[in-house]
């Protein structure tokens, strides 16, 4: 299968700040890549370079076979973009916004109009279609901007935090829409803060930090890499934290995390309920009074903290977090 997106050694600097530090990756046609990373990691910068909004200072990238610098115009006719902040005209209605985008994709007046109505329906905005966007809620703005990315049915889509600010229903609806598009052969690069979203949509996940890729793999690969489940415990007294830590070392399949302020310990474990039962027994034996205990799936937090923790070889993720 050929690659819809390729990036080789992308570099982008803003004065002192290196937003992209030699980022390389590729996205096979018809697949979904999710970029995960903390604030300032370089996710938006990556999207802006690939959609020709920014010129890279170094490296090369192609999208749908077009070079981002040399072949920008042709590239733009093959992509749809919804940026992190909605790019819509406040004074125009939702329908007028989408119609304008259609005309600027050169779909012609009739098709632009029809397409606008279709998308308004699909994004549950039909009732608000003829109201100026100025009066839309945050989530409605987000949806009209997403609709803008789909107007021309482009083969490659870029969505920067598409579901931030959406209510659960709208989020689920968008996920369905995206799944349909991908099933029909579109390629998607999305950035997200939600593990669940990456889980649901992405074939591959790339974790970025400081403009570099620090991990890449399928959802399962990454989750395996950081341990399958998490046991989260709250003890009664600060003095018990260290005792608990020692008692639990043999259950942990990765670095344990302690938050002294809230008396919490997080332990990555290999299996689920059985580990929880054994852990609690072990703690009772050690005389630790457990106030709260629970089992949960890894979150973006876990992936990020664990991966960056390992990356920094031995540094406690907690202290790393504090110095950033």
């Amino acid at each position, binding site marked *: 299968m050929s690659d819809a997106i390729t990036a080789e050694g992308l570099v982008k600097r803003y004065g002192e700040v290196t937003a992209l530090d030699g980022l390389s990756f590729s996205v096979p046609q018809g697949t979904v890549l999710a970029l995960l990373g903390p604030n300032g990691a370089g996710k938006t910068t990556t999207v802006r370079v690939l959609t020709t909004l920014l010129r890279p200072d170094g490296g090369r990238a192609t999208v749908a076979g077009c070079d981002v610098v040399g072949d920008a115009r042709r590239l733009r006719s093959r992509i749809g*973009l919804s940026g992190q902040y909605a790019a819509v005209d406040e004074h125009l209605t939702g329908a007028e916004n989408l119609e304008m*985008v259609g005309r600027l994709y050169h779909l012609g007046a009739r098709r632009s109009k029809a397409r606008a109505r279709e998308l308004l329906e699909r994004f549950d905005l039909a009732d608000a279609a003829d109201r100026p966007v100025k009066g839309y809620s945050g989530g409605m703005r987000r949806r009209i901007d997403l609709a803008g990315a789909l107007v021309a049915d482009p083969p490659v889509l870029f969505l920067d935090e598409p579901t931030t600010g959406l209510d659960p229903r709208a989020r689920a609806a968008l996920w369905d829409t995206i799944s349909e598009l991908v099933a029909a052969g579109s390629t998607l690069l999305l950035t997200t803060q939600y593990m669940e979203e990456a889980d649901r949509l992405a074939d591959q996940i790339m974790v970025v930090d400081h403009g570099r890729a620090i991990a890449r793999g399928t959802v399962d690969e990454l989750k395996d890499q950081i341990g399958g489940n998490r046991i989260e415990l709250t003890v009664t007294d600060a003095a018990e934290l260290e005792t608990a830590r020692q008692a639990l070392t043999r259950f942990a399949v990765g670095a344990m995390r302690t938050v002294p302020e809230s008396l919490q310990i997080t332990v990555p474990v290999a299996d689920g309920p059985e580990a929880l039962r054994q852990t609690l027994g072990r703690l009772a034996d050690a005389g630790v009074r457990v106030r709260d205990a629970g089992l949960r799936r890894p979150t973006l937090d876990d992936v990020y903290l664990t991966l960056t923790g390992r990356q920094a070889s031995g540094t406690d993720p907690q202290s790393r977090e504090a110095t950033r």
Partner: protein
Amino acid sequence: MNALTMPIADGWTIARRNTLKIRRSPDLLGSVITLPIVLVLLFAYVFGSVIDVPGMSYREFLLPGIFVQAVIIGAQITGYTLTLDLQKGIFDRFRSLPMAPSAVLIGQTVSDLLMNLASLVVMAVMGLIVGWRVHTSPHEAVLGFGLLLLFAYAFSWVTATVALALRTPESFNNIATMVSFPLMFVSNAFLDSSALPTPLRVVAEWNPVSTFTQAARDLFGNTSTAMKTSDAWPIQHAIPASLLWITAMLIVFVPLATRIYKQAVSS
């Protein structure tokens, strides 16, 4: 679509967007209509009651000056609107679409030209009400308005350039006010500039505002033989001098604004 038709088609789409916007923002439309009315009344009755010009009524002398003043203020809408758009994300949308980059500025300047046309119409009606008359043939009068509109269009590109370089509405407004006021007042727009002390008089004679005002007076026939006009070349040949100014503005500022636009939206 080819390289020639695309900027026109896309420019038309953007101009349509702008006219929709104008229809929805009554404050902008209101100022385009009320400003000329206020200007005409203010200058005609306040200045008009103390200033005399030889051989004709002050109001007839004044109106071409007010036309030029309104065009200068009206063309600033282009720059101001662009700075507002720069603050929002809409240019990101435009930049990610396969449209002609020049279309954004073409569309903006064209729709602002329509605003200037509306303002000139209101002003001409106000002028007729307070006693301004055209003394030349109808086709010269049409040429007069045509010249003012050409000036408006060319000057829109100047304000676009300044706005894209400065980027914020606040700094654009500051600079625009600081530059346009001296330009309008050290000219023959409101006074007989030959009465000014020599250094100011020379500035006024070569000021393009005087050139355009004089050209409008010539084309509308708002001149008098009893008035001593200046010997300076741009006043003696106001119509060709105006056309030269317009050509120069377009040649310099159309490419310059387009270049700064591409840079301004890609950082």
